[in-house]
């Protein structure tokens, strides 16, 4: 059925990329981060990811089959990617029923009511994550402390995320930069390891599934703006490297903001989109009520995508 890639403006370059191929590549790119999460958070990571992916696929199938009476297109793999990204954005100790609620929201509120794949203005996984954050603020902000897999059987201890420490000023030691890089810090289980996520992102760039524009613009903006504040007052504002390695910045910039359906089509548009995301993220992190702002900023910029596309139409071959 709907195996064509969604293209919003000319040129309609023909390529043998199918939705399926793209989606499965994203899944492959997420595997390194998944492995690191299993290493640090153990079995719950596998269970939550399985539940999230399973429920997203199931709900999409049920809605298409019985409510919309269409031929189900779940085999395109987009629900699998949504499920994985959603699971990556929750703490590893989230109760399973909340994960199911998240899957219902992603598919039943953020994706299918707008017309399914290619028509949703907002990234479904992020809508569901923000929904869960507002719906279950306690469960969504209680982070298990990462413990390497061989310390099996130890009690699960919870602790704050580095950004949470920054915002609330708790008397807890900050993780070292090395630990932030490999992923030994509190946080949603898919976002902790910067290295594993970057390996996945490089794979996607190599496969030409994403372009560099959005991630680079996004991350660079965060780095520069955080850097300016840090230079002005290093005692009050954290160092820009800290902002790069903590929270969901890398996951958001490389895997969520680059979602083809909900990001601009032209390179200039992508750069503006990325800068907007970065700016909003750092504003929320420094001055907002929430410690982390990546999901909010991407969703807000998603809303501007039609406008950006209108201003920066991709050049046609004829011109």
């Amino acid at each position, binding site marked *: 059925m709907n195996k064509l890639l969604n293209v919003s403006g000319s040129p309609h370059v023909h390529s043998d990329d199918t939705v399926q191929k793209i989606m499965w590549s994203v899944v492959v790119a997420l595997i390194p981060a998944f492995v690191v999460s299993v290493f640090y958070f153990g079995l719950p990571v596998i269970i939550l990811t399985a539940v999230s992916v399973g429920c997203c696929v199931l709900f999409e199938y049920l809605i298409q089959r019985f409510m919309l009476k269409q031929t189900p297109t779940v085999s395109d793999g987009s629900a699998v990617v949504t499920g994985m990204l959603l699971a990556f954005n929750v703490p590893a100790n989230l109760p399973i029923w909340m994960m199911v609620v998240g899957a219902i929201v992603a598919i039943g509120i953020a994706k299918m009511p707008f017309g399914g794949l290619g028509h949703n203005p907002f990234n479904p996984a992020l809508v569901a994550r923000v929904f869960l954050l507002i*719906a279950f603020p306690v469960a969504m902000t209680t982070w298990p402390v990462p413990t390497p897999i061989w310390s099996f059987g130890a009690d699960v201890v919870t602790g704050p995320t580095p950004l949470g420490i920054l915002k609330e000023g708790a008397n807890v030691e900050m993780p070292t930069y090395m630990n932030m890089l490999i992923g030994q810090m509190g946080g949603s289980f898919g976002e902790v390891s910067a290295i594993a996520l970057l390996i996945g992102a490089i794979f996607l760039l190599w496969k030409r599934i994403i372009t560099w524009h959005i991630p680079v613009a996004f991350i660079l903006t965060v780095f520069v703006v955080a850097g300016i504040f840090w230079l002005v007052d290093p005692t009050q504002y954290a160092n820009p490297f800290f902002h790069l390695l903590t929270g969901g910045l890398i996951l958001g910039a490389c895997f969520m903001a680059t979602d083809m359906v909900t990001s601009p089509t032209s390179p200039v548009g992508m750069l503006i989109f990325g800068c907007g995301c970065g700016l909003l993220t750092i504003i929320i992190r420094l001055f907002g009520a929430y410690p982390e702002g990546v999901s909010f900023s991407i969703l807000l910029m998603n809303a501007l995508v039609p406008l950006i596309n209108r201003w920066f139409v991709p050049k046609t071959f004829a011109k």
Partner: protein
Amino acid sequence: MSKIKILTKGFFKENPSLILVLGMCPTLAVTTSVNNALGMGAATTFVLLMSNIIISLLKNVIPDKVRIPCFIVIIATFVSMVDLIIQGFVPALSESLGVFIPLIVVNCIVLGRAEAFASKNTVFDSILDGLGMGIGFTISLVLIAAVREVLGAGSFMGWQFIPADYNILIFVLAPGAFLVLGFIMALVRHCVNRVEEKRKSKMCATK
């Protein structure tokens, strides 16, 4: 139009908040619990009914040029009365509805019915219209509030039956109001359309 139809059109077919999309401010803001929704619905229905009666009585006296100020004065009078009465006799309700009772003055449903119906029709018809619209408004508020209260607070009319651990907080907060309103709007429109289609096909068959 038959008298029954004047009364019942406000329930679903021309439901003020779900079909005409009027009075969104109270629809979104006070529907956190069924009790609030009933209180707001009753207050609005009273104001609608009274302002419809007075305006339809005065429709030949009020000059066209100053009709809007006249309507507003009449509506504001009844709203202030309701506000005072609620403050005096149901202080708990006045506390939970807060500023939204005085805000009935600017509810488009009330002025809309005064302008579109009461100023052109007889007193009896205006009574039916005001009642019907008020009941329709109450129905929509209660529908939204029921979903929000059950999912968000685990209770119905204050009676808790889902433990607090299983409440989905977003539904009692502002974003939940928009989500629930959207889905209920879609559902009601779907049902109304379906009924219309059936009626049309029946009419075709009898012809």
